[in-house]
């Protein structure tokens, strides 16, 4: 330590004898040290002129507080900050907001949808947000949305799968090319689409037997057939008849219209599934498999060893099995696309509902008590959830809280007055 570091202590008389003597010698020989000492003396002398002119007050109140320590708060004169504005309370508020924001709120707010919603969900008839799907699919979805909007503006009814072109178009007499979008007249003519039409129709009919006969005759007249027919509670006053009819696909909407006119429709669910791609794929696979079959037959005719013959025959059997399966599927789809299926339920209209007298209103005190207890339980539930959240996050919150407390404390102690 330099002698100059001891000058202040020397001036205050706080140095031991030997060090004081050394500093005294330095002050005699070193003009710079003497200048420092003079400066310190001047500052010290001026500081001693500092006074506090405040009149001493509060002794009586302090004596009263000492005599009655519990009443000390009453004799304190200067108002303190309200508890919620004190420093500790502010940190408490901040902690509470953090806990609420990061731990409680996410568990209370439901998730706003799944971004991985497949594009196929648009079949349900709703719009799809293009921003939630990959860029490559956005164009297609935007086109689809635009088409749906255009159809909606045109007043076209929407069927159960959300495709308005089929039912609306055909009911307006557009029987040809049922799946073709109505707003694409200038598009190149595509091959006829294969659409499997199915539906469910529920009708309240006054005369169920007559309606059943009408439907049977109608089906035959259209070139179709009744696939199944059953009657429940036939002996009762409220029989229920269930029928499944198959009609050519181009007469499907006519059949729906005629059956709907037999009474009041209480259920209508019409669907269309485009199977063109599936059938085309099947035909392509069939073509390939048949070519392979021909090649294998050629190889078989030239095979010489038993092992070769067995191997080729195994492969031929496998190919033949695949061909038959695919061919059956293709024919089935074509059949479904040619003959649509409609399930019809015929019932009597239900009797008018019995008017139930409303329950007598509870007294206002009972209602208020019920509401109050409900709110109380909600509050208790909230705090229990809060407590459990804090408890489960304690391993994280404790170290963080300790660090915050440490730095706040350190900062606070260094900046007060």
């Amino acid at each position, binding site marked *: 330590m*330099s002698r*100059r*570091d001891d*000058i*202040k*202590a020397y001036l*205050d008389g*706080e140095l031991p004898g030997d060090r004081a003597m050394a500093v005294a010698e330095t002050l005699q020989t070193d003009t*710079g040290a003497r*200048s*420092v000492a*003079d*400066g*310190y*003396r*001047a*500052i*010290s*002398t*001026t*500081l*001693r*002129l*500092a*006074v*506090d*002119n*405040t*009149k*001493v*007050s*509060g*002794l009586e*109140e*302090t*004596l009263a*507080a*000492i*005599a009655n*320590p519990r009443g*000390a708060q009453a*004799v*304190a*004169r*200067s108002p*303190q*900050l309200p508890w919620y504005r*004190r*420093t500790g309370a502010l940190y408490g508020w901040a902690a509470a907001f953090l806990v609420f924001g990061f731990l409680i709120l996410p568990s209370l707010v439901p998730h706003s949808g799944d971004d991985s919603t497949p594009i196929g969900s648009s079949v349900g008839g709703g719009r799809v947000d293009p921003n939630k799907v990959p860029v490559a699919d956005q164009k297609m979805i935007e086109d689809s949305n635009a088409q749906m909007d255009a159809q909606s503006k045109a007043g076209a009814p929407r069927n159960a799968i959300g495709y308005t072109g089929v039912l609306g178009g055909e009911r307006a007499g557009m029987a040809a090319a049922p799946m073709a979008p109505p707003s694409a007249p200038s598009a190149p003519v595509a091959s006829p689409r294969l659409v499997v039409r199915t539906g469910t129709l529920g009708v309240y009919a006054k005369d169920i037997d007559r309606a059943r006969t009408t439907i049977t005759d109608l089906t035959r007249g259209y070139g179709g057939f009744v696939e199944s027919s059953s009657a429940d509670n036939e002996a009762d006053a409220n029989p229920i008849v269930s029928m499944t009819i198959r009609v050519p696909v181009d007469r499907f909407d006519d059949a729906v219209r005629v059956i709907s006119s037999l009474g009041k429709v209480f259920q209508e669910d019409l669907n269309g599934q485009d199977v063109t791609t599936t059938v085309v794929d099947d035909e392509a696979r069939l073509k390939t498999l048949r070519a392979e079959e021909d090649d294998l037959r050629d190889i078989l005719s030239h095979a010489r060893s038993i092992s070769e013959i067995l191997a080729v025959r195994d492969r031929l059997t496998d190919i033949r099995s695949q061909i038959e399966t695919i061919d059956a599927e293709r024919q089935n789809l074509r059949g479904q696309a040619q003959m649509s299926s409609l399930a019809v339920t015929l019932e009597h209209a239900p009797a008018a509902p019995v008017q139930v007298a409303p329950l007598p209103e509870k007294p206002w005190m009972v209602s208020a008590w019920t509401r109050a207890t409900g709110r109380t339980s909600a509050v208790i539930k909230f705090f229990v959830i809060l407590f459990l959240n804090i408890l489960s996050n304690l391993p994280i919150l404790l170290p963080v809280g300790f660090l915050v407390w440490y730095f706040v404390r350190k900062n*606070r*102690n*260094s*900046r*007060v*007055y």
Partner: protein
Amino acid sequence: MLAIGDISMTAAPPDIAELAREHYAAVFRFCAQRVGGQNAADAAQDTFLTAQRALSGFKGRSDIKTWLLGIAHNSCRKLARDRRLQPVPLEFIEPPEGLPSEARLVDREALRSAFAKLTPEHRHVVILKEIEGMSYEECGLILGIPAGTVKSRLHHAFQLMRKSLGDPTGELK
């Protein structure tokens, strides 16, 4: 005035009311230097209420006034923190007759400014030593730090004030 010897020889602890009557003015002024005159009464009252609770634990290792000022120091810190008080600026009186000539004093406005630039730790030791006139040992007892730390803080505080006042030799080495 009660001193260390008085306390140690007394079997029963001193009466807090008597202590308050004797030392209230000193404690009040001490508090006024730190939290201002408007808050000094509250800090002083809090000091004596704390002393009342802690009196039975007083071992007499220091002067009773020093002990009280140590409590007052903590009360002032707590009050300043709760009420978010700003440092109290120094107020000077005109130099009385008989003091050294004006040449040996520094500009009071400049000194007030230099003092305000000090850290709280430096301000505390300067107030206790220069204004309250306490020894290094007493300053250390009040602030809860060793006397050597008081000496070091005072040295640095005076160096900084000299530098702020424009003395080129006041630079830290």
